[in-house]
C-alpha cells in the first residue's frame, strides 16, 4: 500500500488546488491550501487525526458515485462557517445551530463548488467517472460526524484512506478541512489506474499488489 501514498497525495494535491481556485473565485478572495496529508488510518483513529471528538463543527457531506465512489467531507469550525455565510450573504449570521434555509444552502453551495472542482481534477487526471450527489449538512460533534460519514462508504474495512487538507482564507482566518473516504472497491480501481500511469511514465512494469485487500 505504502508505495501508493505519495501518488495519492499528488492526486489530492491537484484536486485541492483546483478546489481552492474555485472557492477563491466564488468568494473573490485569496485561498491558501496546505499540502494534503495522505495516509491509511485505522478506523478508530480517524477523528483523532483531525481534532477532538467532541469539538463542534459544521460539516458538508457528499456521496460520490461512478468509477471512483466514496464520501467527501468538508469540515469548518463554527466561526469559519459563520464567516463564510456572512461573506456571501453580506450580513452577519447568528448561531450556527439555528441556520435558516438560505444560510444552510450557502454552505451546501460552497460544498458543491469545492467538491465539484476537486473531483473534476481527479477525474481528468485518472479518466475515471465521478458523479457527486446532493450535499448534506450538519453541525455536530466531530467524532459522530466522521463515524457516520464513514458508514456511508459501507465501512466494513478496518483501515480507511484519509486525504486531509486545510483550506485557509487569508485575512479573516477562515479555515476548513477536506476529507475523502473511498469506498473500498473504488480504492482498488484508483490504484490500478495510477499503477498503469506510473508504468507508462517510468517504462517499467510495476507488480500489481495481490489485490489491495488488507
Amino acid at each position, binding site marked *: 500500500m505504502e508505495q501508493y501514498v505519495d501518488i495519492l497525495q499528488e492526486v489530492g494535491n491537484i484536486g485541492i488546488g483546483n478546489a481552492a481556485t474555485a472557492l477563491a473565485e466564488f468568494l473573490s478572495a485569496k485561498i491558501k491550501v496546505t499540502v494534503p496529508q495522505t495516509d491509511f488510518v485505522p478506523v478508530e483513529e480517524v477523528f483523532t487525526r483531525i481534532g477532538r471528538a*467532541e469539538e463542534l463543527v459544521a*460539516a458538508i457531506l457528499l*456521496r460520490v458515485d461512478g468509477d471512483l465512489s466514496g464520501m467527501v467531507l468538508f469540515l469548518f469550525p463554527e466561526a469559519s462557517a459563520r464567516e463564510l455565510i456572512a461573506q456571501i450573504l453580506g450580513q452577519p449570521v447568528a448561531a450556527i445551530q439555528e441556520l435558516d434555509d438560505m444560510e*444552510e444552502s450557502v454552505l451546501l453551495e460552497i460544498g458543491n463548488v469545492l467538491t465539484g472542482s476537486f473531483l473534476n481534477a481527479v477525474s481528468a487526471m485518472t479518466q475515471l467517472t465521478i458523479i457527486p*450527489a446532493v450535499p448534506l*449538512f450538519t453541525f*455536530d460533534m466531530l467524532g459522530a460526524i466522521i463515524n457516520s460519514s464513514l*458508514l456511508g462508504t459501507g465501512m466494513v474495512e478496518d483501515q480507511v484512506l484519509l486525504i486531509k487538507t486545510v483550506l485557509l482564507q487569508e485575512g479573516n482566518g477562515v479555515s476548513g478541512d477536506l476529507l475523502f473516504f473511498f469506498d473500498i472497491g473504488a480504492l482498488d480501481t484508483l490504484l490500478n489506474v495510477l499503477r498503469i500511469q506510473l508504468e507508462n511514465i517510468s517504462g517499467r512494469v510495476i507488480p500489481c499488489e495481490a489485490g489491495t485487500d488488507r
Partner: protein
Amino acid sequence: MAEAARMTLLNCPSEIQVGIADLKVGGEPAVLVTLGLGSCVGVTLYDPVQKVGGLLHIMLPKMSDFTRGRVKPAKFADTGIPLLLQEVLGLGASRRLLEAKIAGGAQMFSGLDKSFVMNMGNKNVDAVRETLRELRIKIAAEDVGGKNGRTMILYTATGRVVIRIRGTQLKEI
C-alpha cells in the same frame, strides 16, 4: 479482549475511553466513555448487585451481512453484544441481573439525498434490540434516533449512564 479487560481493571480510576468498534468492561469504580456516536450505537450491560459493567460501540448491524472487514466482532451488533456479555460475565456479573442501556443511532445529515445513508442509525438500533432480545437481556433505558451525535458514559459504581449532546448538554438515562 480478556487482556484488555484486565488492563481496564488495573488502571481504572479515571475515564476509560471506548473507541469505535471497541468495548471495555470495569468492576472497580470505573468511568467508561465512548465519544462520537452518530449512527453508531453504544450498548452498556450492567449488574447492579456486583456493580460490574461494560460499554460497547458498534458501527454496523450484522456481521453476516458483510463479506469483508469481519476482523473485529465489536464492530457489529450481533457479534459485539455477545462478546460484551462474555466479558462482563467474566468479571463476575450475574447474567439474570444484567440490564442494558442503549444510545445512538442518529440520522445526522440533513439535505435532499438521504439514500446513501441507508438509514444506518435505525438499522443499528434494530439489530441491537434484536440481539439483546435473543440474549434475553432487558433494555432498562435508551436514548436513540434523532439528529444529534452523542457521547455515552457509564459509571460502574452506580450503573448511571449519562449522555452528552453537542459537547455540553447532559442527560441521564
